[in-house]
C-alpha cells in the first residue's frame, strides 16, 4: 500500500515537472517574440551589446513600422563566438536570414559559398551606381573575387587623437601638428613620463598595428591589382622597423608593463589610456568620439589623420567595419535584402542618416554622408570630421581578402609582437612570417584548396 502511494507520488511529481517545463516557454516571453505574426519573418543576428544593442533594436523597429510585408527579429550574439554560431546554424540548416559581423570572414565564407553575392540582388545599373557611391574602403571590406558579399553598415577608420593640455605642458603647439611621422615621433618623446622606479606612467605616443602603419609607409600586405600577397616589401620593413624603434625608445619591457597596467580584463569603455591621462596621443577608431561624449563630455581633445613619414602615404591606414551578409541558405533572402537596403541607406539615405548618427557610425556611401542630418551630426561633433574625411581616401586597406585571412592576420600580429617586444629583429620577424605563409600556402595547395 505504501509502495503504491509512493509510486503515485513519484508519477505525480514527474507530471508536474513536465507540465511546468512545457508551460514556462509559453508563459515567459522569449527574445524573439512576434509583434506582427502575419508577416514574413526576417531573423537578424548581430554582435552589438549594451547601448549599441538598443540602437540596433530601434532600427529594426523602424524597419518593421516602415512596411507591412516583413518583421525583422534581432538577436544579439556574443561577438567572439558569432562566426562559429553562424556556421553551426548554417550546418544545421537553420541560419539567420541576415547577419551583421565584424570578423575577418568574408573571403572564407564567400569561397565556401555560404553567403550570397549581394551585387547579384541589384539591377546592373543600380550596382554600377552603387560602386560609384560607396566609399572605396567599404567596397574593399565587402568584396571578394569581383563580387560584393558584405555591405558595410558602419565603417571603422583610425586616426590620431591628441591632448592639447599635454602638448602645451611640453611647450608644443597643438594648433600646428608636425607634418611628418618623424616629427610627430620627436614631439611624442617630449611627453613621456616615468615614475621613481623608472616605470612609464605616461607615453607621448605608442604606435601599434602593422595593418595601420604598412599603408602609411606606402606598403601593404596585398597587391590589389594582381590579387596576391605582398608581404616582404621595403615599405613594410620600414614600417616594422619604425614600430620596433618606437618601442625600443621607450624600453621593450617597460612598454609591456605599461600596456598591461592600462587595460581592464574586459578592455571596457572608460579605461582608455588616452582619456585617463596615460597617453598624450593615441591611434584609435572613430567610435571613441561618441564614447568621450558620453563618458567625459568636457574632455579636451582633438583628432587628425596620422601624418605620413617621408616617402609615405597621407590619409592612409587600416579599415574594417560592421558588414551585413545574407546566408545562401537563408529562408527569406528578399526580406533580408530589403532590411539591409533600409539600414545601409541604399534606399532613402536621408532616413538612414538618422541610424548612423544614433550609433555614431560612419556611413558606407556618399549619399548618407551628404544627408543634412549627417552633416548636422558632424557639425555637432567636430572631432568626428577627421574620420568622415578619411572615408574618401583611396589609401585605406582591410586585411587582404584571402580565404586564409584569419591565419594571415594572426601571423602578421605575431610578427609585430615578436619585433616589438624585442625578442627578434624586425628582419627575423618578417622572415619567419614569410616562412609561415609559404608553408601555409603550400599546404593549402596540397590539400586541394583553390585560392
Amino acid at each position: 500500500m505504501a509502495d503504491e502511494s509512493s509510486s503515485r507520488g513519484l508519477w505525480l511529481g514527474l507530471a508536474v515537472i513536465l507540465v511546468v517545463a512545457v508551460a514556462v516557454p509559453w508563459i515567459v516571453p522569449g527574445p524573439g517574440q512576434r509583434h506582427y505574426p502575419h508577416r514574413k519573418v526576417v531573423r537578424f543576428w548581430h554582435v552589438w551589446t549594451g547601448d549599441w544593442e538598443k540602437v540596433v533594436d530601434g532600427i529594426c523597429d523602424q524597419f518593421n513600422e516602415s512596411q507591412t510585408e516583413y518583421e525583422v527579429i534581432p538577436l544579439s550574439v556574443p561577438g567572439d563566438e558569432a562566426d562559429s554560431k553562424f556556421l553551426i546554424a548554417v550546418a544545421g540548416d537553420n541560419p539567420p536570414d541576415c547577419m551583421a559581423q565584424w570578423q575577418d570572414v568574408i573571403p572564407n565564407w564567400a569561397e565556401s559559398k555560404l553567403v550570397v553575392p549581394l551585387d547579384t540582388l541589384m539591377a546592373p545599373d543600380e550596382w554600377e551606381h552603387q560602386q560609384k557611391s560607396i566609399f572605396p574602403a567599404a567596397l574593399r571590406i565587402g568584396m571578394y573575387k569581383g563580387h560584393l558579399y558584405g555591405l558595410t553598415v558602419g565603417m571603422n577608420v583610425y586616426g590620431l587623437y591628441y591632448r592639447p593640455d599635454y602638448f602645451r605642458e611640453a611647450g608644443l603647439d597643438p594648433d600646428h601638428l608636425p607634418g611628418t611621422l618623424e616629427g610627430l615621433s620627436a614631439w611624442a618623446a617630449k611627453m613621456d613620463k616615468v615614475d621613481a622606479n623608472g616605470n612609464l606612467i605616461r607615453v607621448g605616443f605608442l604606435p601599434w598595428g602593422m595593418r595601420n602603419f604598412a599603408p602609411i609607409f606606402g606598403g601593404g600586405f596585398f597587391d590589389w591589382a594582381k590579387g596576391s600577397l605582398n608581404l616582404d616589401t621595403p615599405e613594410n620593413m620600414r614600417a616594422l622597423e619604425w614600430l620596433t624603434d618606437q618601442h625600443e625608445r621607450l624600453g621593450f619591457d617597460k612598454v609591456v608593463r605599461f600596456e598591461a597596467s592600462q587595460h581592464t580584463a574586459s578592455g571596457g569603455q572608460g579605461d582608455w589610456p588616452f582619456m585617463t591621462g596615460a597617453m598624450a596621443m593615441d591611434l584609435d577608431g572613430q567610435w571613441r568620439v561618441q564614447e568621450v561624449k558620453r563618458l567625459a563630455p568636457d574632455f579636451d581633445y582633438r583628432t587628425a589623420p596620422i601624418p605620413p613619414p617621408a616617402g609615405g602615404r597621407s590619409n592612409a591606414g587600416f579599415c574594417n567595419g560592421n558588414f551585413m551578409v545574407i546566408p545562401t541558405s537563408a529562408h527569406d533572402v528578399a526580406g533580408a535584402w530589403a532590411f539591409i537596403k533600409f539600414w545601409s541607406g541604399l534606399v532613402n539615405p536621408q532616413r538612414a542618416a538618422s541610424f548612423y548618427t544614433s550609433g555614431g557610425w560612419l556611413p558606407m556611401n556618399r549619399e548618407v554622408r551628404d544627408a543634412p542630418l549627417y552633416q548636422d551630426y558632424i557639425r555637432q561633433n567636430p572631432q568626428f570630421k577627421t574620420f568622415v574625411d578619411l572615408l574618401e581616401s583611396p589609401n585605406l586597406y582591410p586585411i587582404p581578402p584571402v580565404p586564409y585571412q584569419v591565419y594571415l592576420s594572426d601571423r602578421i600580429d605575431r610578427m609585430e609582437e615578436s619585433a616589438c617586444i624585442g625578442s627578434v629583429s624586425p628582419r627575423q620577424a618578417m622572415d619567419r612570417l614569410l616562412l609561415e605563409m609559404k608553408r601555409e600556402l603550400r599546404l593549402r595547395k596540397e590539400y586541394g584548396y583553390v585560392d
Partner: protein
Amino acid sequence: MKNRWGYLFISPWLIGALFFVVGPFIASVYFSFTRYDIVNSPVWVGMANYKTLFFDDPLFWNGLLTTLEYAAVAVPLGIIGGVGLALLLNLELPGMGIYRTIFYLPSIVPVVASSVVFMWLLNPQIGLVNSLIRLLGVEGPNWLQKRPFAFWSLVGMSLWSLGGSMIIYLAGLKDVPTTLYEAAVIDGAGAWNRTRHITLPLLTPVIFFNLVMGVIGAFQYFTQAYIMTQGGPEDSTTFYGLYIFFRAWRYLDMGYASALAWVLFLAITCVTAVIFKTHSKWVFYGR
C-alpha cells in the same frame, strides 16, 4: 522489470551520451582523415593531416612540448602541495575545520573568475605580486607578457586550486587505521618515520588516483591559457588544447583539429597506461 525502470530513468543521459559524446567521438575518427570546415562536405585526404602535424607543423610540436612540460611540472607540484597541505590540515588543532574550509574554497571558485583575478594579481605594474616584490627593492617581471614567465605563472596558478585534491588526500588520511600509528609509537617510531612508513604508503592509492586525473587534466589544459594569455606571448602558452581550439574554431580546420584531438587522446591513453603499468611497484593497498 526493476532494470527496465532504471534504464528508463537514465535514458536521458544515455541518449545524450550516445548522440553528443559517442557519435561525435566516432565521427571525429573519420573527420581526422578529411579536410572539413563544418559547412561543406568533408573531403577525404587520407593520412595528410597526420603527416602534416608530425612533419610540417611547428605549432603542433610547440603545443605538445608546452603541454608535456606543464604536465611534468604542475602535476608533481600539485601532488606534493596537496599531500603536504592535507598532512598539515590533518593535525588535531582547534579551529582546523575553518582552515580546511579556507584552503578548499579556491577550488570551487569558477576558473574564469579566478583567471581574471590572477590577471590583476600578476599585472606587472599595478599587480599585488609585483607590489610585494617591490618592497624588497626589486622590480618583478612581466608575468603574463614575457616568456618564460607566462608559462611559469600558469604553473604557479595551478596551485591555487589545490584544495580539491587536498580534500581527497585528507579523506585518505582519515582512512589510515590508528592502530598502525599506536603500534609504531610503541615501537618508538618518531613523526617522520610514521609519515614515511605508514601514512605515505597507505596514501599511495589516493596519490595514484590524483596522479592519473592530474595528468589527464594537464593534457587538456585550456581555460586559463585561453583567458589569461590567448596562447602568447609568442605562442609560449599555446597549449595543445588551445591549439586544437584555434585550428577548429578560428581557422575552421575541423579535419586537422580532429587529427590533433586523436593524437592527444592516444597520448593521454599511452601516458595513463604507463602510469597504470608502474602502479603495482609503488601503490600499496595494505594487503
